[in-house]
């Protein structure tokens, strides 16, 4: 059997699934306010109650993760803000690869490739915007001047559109794209084959194989 490389630890996977579930609920209960034809589903406001329950999970889950996995969280957050010339080369080569299976120009990637980093960056920045504007809309509605509240709704909606579209891309690349054969496995079982790691995350694979793998 081919050698397996650990890609996401159990805690990271758990956070991913809980956060995704919360976000999907938030997305759908928000969508009914975005599409007027679906507005009837929000009658009585039960979708807004669900939205709040999911919002609590959306905030509490990463907070717990950060508290108990401080080192991993620090490393992860740093990753989202580390960009270099290689990322530009990746962006140039990406259409050729993701459309035409041309891997020749793809620079070797670290633990996250540029595309994953972009998504991760969006998750962090827009996640923060969501939470911040959401807190104002939920708890400070009566204190906040109307003009400020209006901007909160506006920013919340912009974040909804950006992250909503990117969520489609994320799900597509994770589960549907013909070449991402082990992305789903990496987030459910936590491992990918050495072969996949080498071709998709060459730089990371090199570094990871230098270290003694822990119980892998």
């Amino acid at each position: 059997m081919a050698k397996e490389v650990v890609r996401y630890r159990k805690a990271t996977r758990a956070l991913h699934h809980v956060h995704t579930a919360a976000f999907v609920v938030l997305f759908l209960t928000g969508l009914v306010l975005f599409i007027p034809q679906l507005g009837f589903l929000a009658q009585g406001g039960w979708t807004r109650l669900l939205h709040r329950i999911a919002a609590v999970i959306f905030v509490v889950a990463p907070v717990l993760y950060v508290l108990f996995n401080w080192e991993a969280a620090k490393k992860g957050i740093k990753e989202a803000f580390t960009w270099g010339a290689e990322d530009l080369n990746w962006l140039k080569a990406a259409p050729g690869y993701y459309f035409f299976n041309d891997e020749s120009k793809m620079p070797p990637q670290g633990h996250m490739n540029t595309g994953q980093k972009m998504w991760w960056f969006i998750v962090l920045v827009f996640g923060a915007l969501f939470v911040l504007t959401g807190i104002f809309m939920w708890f400070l509605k009566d204190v906040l001047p109307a003009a400020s509240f209006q901007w909160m709704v506006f920013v919340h909606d912009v974040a909804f559109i950006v992250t909503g579209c990117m969520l489609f891309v994320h799900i597509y690349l994770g589960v549907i794209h013909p070449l991402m054969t082990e992305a789903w496995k990496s987030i459910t079982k936590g491992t990918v084959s050495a072969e996949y790691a080498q071709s998709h995350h060459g730089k990371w694979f090199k570094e990871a194989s230098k270290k003694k793998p822990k119980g892998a």
Partner: protein
Amino acid sequence: MATAILYDSTRCTACRACQVACKQWNELEVEETTNRGTYENPPDLSANTRMKIKFTEVPKNVGIDWLFTRRACMHCTDASCVKVCPSGALFYDGRDGFVAYDRDLCTGCGYCVEFCPFDVPRTERNVITGLSTMNKCTFCTTPGLNRIEAGEKPACVTTCPTGALLYDDRDKLVAIGKQRVQTLKTAGSNNANLFGETELNGLHVLYVLEDSPDAYGLPVDPKVPGVAIAWKDVIQPLGWIMGGVTIVGLGLNYLVARQAKIRKEQTVKKEE
């Protein structure tokens, strides 16, 4: 045809019979209030008070003058609340053009509360669950309590004992209002004006005022907030386009990428 209510502040004695009639007809609960040192009561609009008379006290050499205003939905032609309402609970009445409201459709989001240039809609909101429904004047067209459909005037108008409230064809009321302003000007009220003729493309509640609107605490030049326009007319259509392009793009990518993969596999096989 559009109908409207004309409120003549100079004929109003603030008897507040309209407030009572509104509550009675629309089956709105009474609120217990405390003495705040003014005859004005209740202190503010609420989910159970759709209209009230506001007292503005203007100091005179001796004592004070009262400026009375009617606080209730102004039924704008360009209504911010209709623009931001996500569920269609707020909508323009097809025949008369005022802002109708179907409380059964309300999701309780409260956007109308924050976007109304007149600060009129009110909610009763549970801060933790966020559950709430809004309430505001419906021109007495609440289903089951529809006076207009029955050929009646709104309850407040029917009750008014001094003729300060009129309900009629809007054009007719504009003419009456203008004439009244002229009379007031001749009598020495130089600032007399008709509020609501052109504001927000014409309000369905017109005010005859003997002083400038801001003396009554009314916005001088009410506007649909710029954020509402940027949000509803720019960002949300862009959102639809972005969402559509994303989904179509991903579909196309799948078709192309799958073909490319199959072709590559075939070449590899041939080489072998």
